[in-house]
């Protein structure tokens, strides 16, 4: 077996990026195929059905549910103002009438003769989605959204917190093994996407939020800091919805981790450019990783684009993703077919890796990821 399949995070200098911008419910698209859009351009719009309020009119009036319809002022679909009477009892000789009023502004949706319950619905909630990246409208998804296409630098992280944001990329450290410390963050970082090195602490993150930094990209972060930052212990890794005032993207993992040189050098070369980032991560079936998209004017480079995704061969650049070589970079030196016994006594398929310093080691194939060149 000359090659193997392994997961890998994309780090592409220039590539074609396609982003689907889809509405949560059917709605209308506002752009046409071929239109140039900026990241802020609103491309589609819809209205979510309003929240429902249920009131039991029969209970309030103290009457059998079946007797209510003739006492209602509203029929299905009628608009309602807050506090507007919905129905009224006949009272005793025209006196002591019991009036039921709408607690909300919206519409009278339905009344049920058995339960005595009326369903009132608040006005619809408008939802708009923007283009997220600067590019061209490539496709219209009828009533659902659009696909934006751009030539861009594209980098995937391993884990993120916080949703979509954008800003100019600013490099704050000299090397990928340097920690992003508080003293490196000042007023000039407001509204920017900061490139750090190996680590960021909770205290530095707090300072960045206070200054108004939009996002931080670093190699690693401590889990105990994550707990402090979120205010809870993250259970299932589904993120992106946090409203913490900043988006954080880790490129390597938890703990202090030197950012992969390739990633760092590539991002450093894009300093000052408008960058769109999204921290949303979903680690389950249909995995989703955080990302940086930096639209560029360069022509697409043809190199490496025909390589089979996930195919690993002798000489492929890889990163170890589990102890004891976590974070170390190297190249595949051999792919032995036979299973081998690990330190843990497990019998598994392995590969031999030659690290950047020339040393070699045997690691399980499951414990490396491919770095796309």
């Amino acid at each position, binding site marked *: 077996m000359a090659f193997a399949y392994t997961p890998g995070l994309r780090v592409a200098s220039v590539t074609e990026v396609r982003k689907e911008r889809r509405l949560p419910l059917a709605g209308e698209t506002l752009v046409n195929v071929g239109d140039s859009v900026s990241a802020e351009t609103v491309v589609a719009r819809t209205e979510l059905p309003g*929240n429902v309020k249920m009131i039991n009119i029969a209970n309030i009036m103290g009457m059998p549910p079946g007797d209510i319809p003739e006492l209602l002022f509203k029929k299905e679909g009628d608009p309602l103002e807050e506090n507007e009477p919905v129905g009224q009892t006949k009272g005793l000789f025209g006196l002591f009438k019991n009036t039921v009023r709408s607690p909300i502004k919206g519409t009278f949706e339905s009344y049920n003769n058995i339960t005595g319950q009326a369903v009132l619905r608040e006005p619809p909630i408008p939802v708009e989605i923007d283009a997220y990246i600067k590019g061209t409208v490539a496709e219209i998804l009828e009533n659902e959204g659009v696909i934006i296409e751009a030539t861009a630098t594209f980098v995937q992280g391993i884990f993120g917190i916080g949703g979509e944001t954008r800003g100019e990329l600013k490099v704050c450290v000299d090397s990928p093994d340097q920690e992003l410390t508080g003293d490196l963050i000042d007023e000039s970082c407001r509204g920017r996407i900061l490139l750090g090195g190996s680590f960021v602490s909770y205290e530095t993150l707090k300072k960045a939020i206070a200054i108004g930094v939009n996002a931080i990209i670093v190699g690693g972060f401590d889990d105990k800091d994550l707990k402090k930052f979120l205010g809870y212990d993250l259970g299932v890794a589904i993120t992106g919805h946090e409203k913490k005032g900043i988006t954080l993207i880790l490129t390597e993992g*938890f703990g202090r981790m030197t950012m992969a040189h390739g990633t760092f050098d590539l991002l450093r070369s894009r300093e000052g450019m408008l960058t769109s980032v999204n921290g949303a991560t979903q680690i389950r079936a249909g995995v989703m990783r955080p990302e940086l998209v930096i639209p560029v004017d360069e022509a697409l480079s043809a190199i490496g684009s025909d390589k089979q995704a996930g195919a690993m061969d002798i000489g492929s650049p890889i990163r170890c993703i589990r102890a004891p070589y976590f974070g170390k970079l190297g190249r595949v030196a051999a792919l032995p077919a036979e299973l081998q016994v690990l330190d843990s006594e497990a*019998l598994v398929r392995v590969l031999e890796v030659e690290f950047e310093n020339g040393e070699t080691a045997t690691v399980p194939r499951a414990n490396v990821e491919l770095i796309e060149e």
Partner: protein
Amino acid sequence: MAVADKEITRIMATDCGSTTTKAILIEKRDGEYRLIRRGEAPTTVEAPAEDVTKGVLNAVGEIEDLEGRKFLKADGSTVQVSPDSPDGVDIYMSTSSAGGGLQMTVAGVVKSMTGESAQRAALGAGAIVMDVVASNDGRLAHEKVADIRRLRPDMILLSGGIDGGTIDHVVELAEIIKAADPKPRFGVGYKLPVIYAGNKDAAGEVAKELGDKVELKIVDNLRPVLERENLTPARDIIHELFMEHVMAQAPGYPRLMKWAGHYVDDKWKQVPVMPTPGAVGKLIEIVAKQENIEVMGVDIGGATTDVFSVFHSGEETVFNRTVSANLGLSYSVSNVLASAGFDNVMRWVPFHMDEADLRNRIRNKMIRPTTIPQMLKELIVEQAIAREALRLALVQHKELATGLKGVAQERTIGDAFEQTQTGATLVNMMNLDLLIGSGGVLSHAPRRSQAALMVIDAFLPEGVTMLAVDSIFMMPQLGVLSEVLPQAATEVFDKDCLIRLGSCVAPSGQLKKTDVLADVSLKMPDGSSEELQIERGKMFVLPLGVGEKVQAVIKPAKNLDVGSGPGVEWIGELEGGVVGLVFDGRGRQPFNLPEDDSTRIAKLQEWAKALDIYPDRFLNLEGSE
């Protein structure tokens, strides 16, 4: 729909899991069905393939390579089912949990009564229950509406009211579903399946509310009277709708469903694709029934942990299944830490470890879920987490595997001092005969004794219990096979799937001052006798091979029970296994680990050595990588 055995001698079965598709080849040779070969390949539900059958072809292709025979059609387009040709197989079948399995919301009037019955029906059918909506669940109507809409279940099961009981509350629940107007996860333009299995008198009103909004199916009430559940009609329709609606929308499934089948009298007959946990449950039920024993099975996966049980309740045999949706060892590993707490995980690690270090290790496993422990230290940490995931899954199972709540009980004067409530758990570890572990961390543990100690620590079996593991996780395929060819399923299960680890003997009850929990007399297979003592706080193993049995007399100390009652002698047969007979003197009800760190670590090391679960160098791992 059982078929005459002679017609089928070559069987291909696959299980499309969320990450891996596993294929097994079973053949009848020398008059018995045996597992011949196993192959696996990554599941291909997601982009770029977006077609589950690709993974199936790859997994079967691996079997072709290993076996040197053809099982796919010449153009590689499908599994070849051809009874008249030397190539291919006589029948192909499959189970599936890919794409997140079957996700359901259930609704009932009273949460602990019809709500729970509905939950049991859905779980038994192999679903993940995302939410239980009930009239008394404490949420306001609009909150329920918002929750149904947000969760986007694949299907909703609406129950409520015994026959002749409340109508209002049931219709109210239907109104909530109507207001939510939920949209299915897969496929635009088809209606969400909703099953009504409640008060038959409310069926008309429910149909009026929901009829044109959803794909409504009305079946018999799942709780027609308070004293009885009738879950089968609801479970059957869930399976049917799962095939027709949910699976049919997932990428590649329409084709997979066409592939699964065989020829009967020259006519093609389809075999339904089953949800994976539904198939495992089926198999466990069959085993319990055939041997007339009480059985528990646990399958610990990357994202979820399933627990199955068959216990006797009076005259009846009751099957239960629960799924702990967020307890697992890869995707959900961080959630185990969050749910169990750091200290509970740490208490199983036989050396000191820094909290920050452990937390980062667990998180790194979460973000790269497919990695495996290379170092012994990492393996030990992972097995510590597995113990807590298993323990929590059992706690959840005990809460749902109960007798029916709200049932009137007759009490005699003798019961006056015993305040038993209705709905007590059916899980009784003392009565349990067989405990089967499955899933990577148990099936693929480098030493079988590791699997034995993990299930003992997590499940704390009492009295005499046989422990076993599923050798290569093929219970799902055997479950679906049992529908068509029960004999083949049980033969392969017994000979190739189930690996007996050995009996565990654990006295249970309040320990008084005694240091000896039980005296054991054994009559060995070679005719010799052995006299042993189970001492307080100690464990030991007596080698006894697979299929070997000894006659045993176990005399527990006063107050302690090994199955015959407190202080009463137990006489019976103990069966061995690949680990042997495990004697556990650490106590049950209660089982406590020493609170002091150093004493606890010393004890963990002592037990690990007694069962020989790790190489001796594990004693020097502190501070290492």
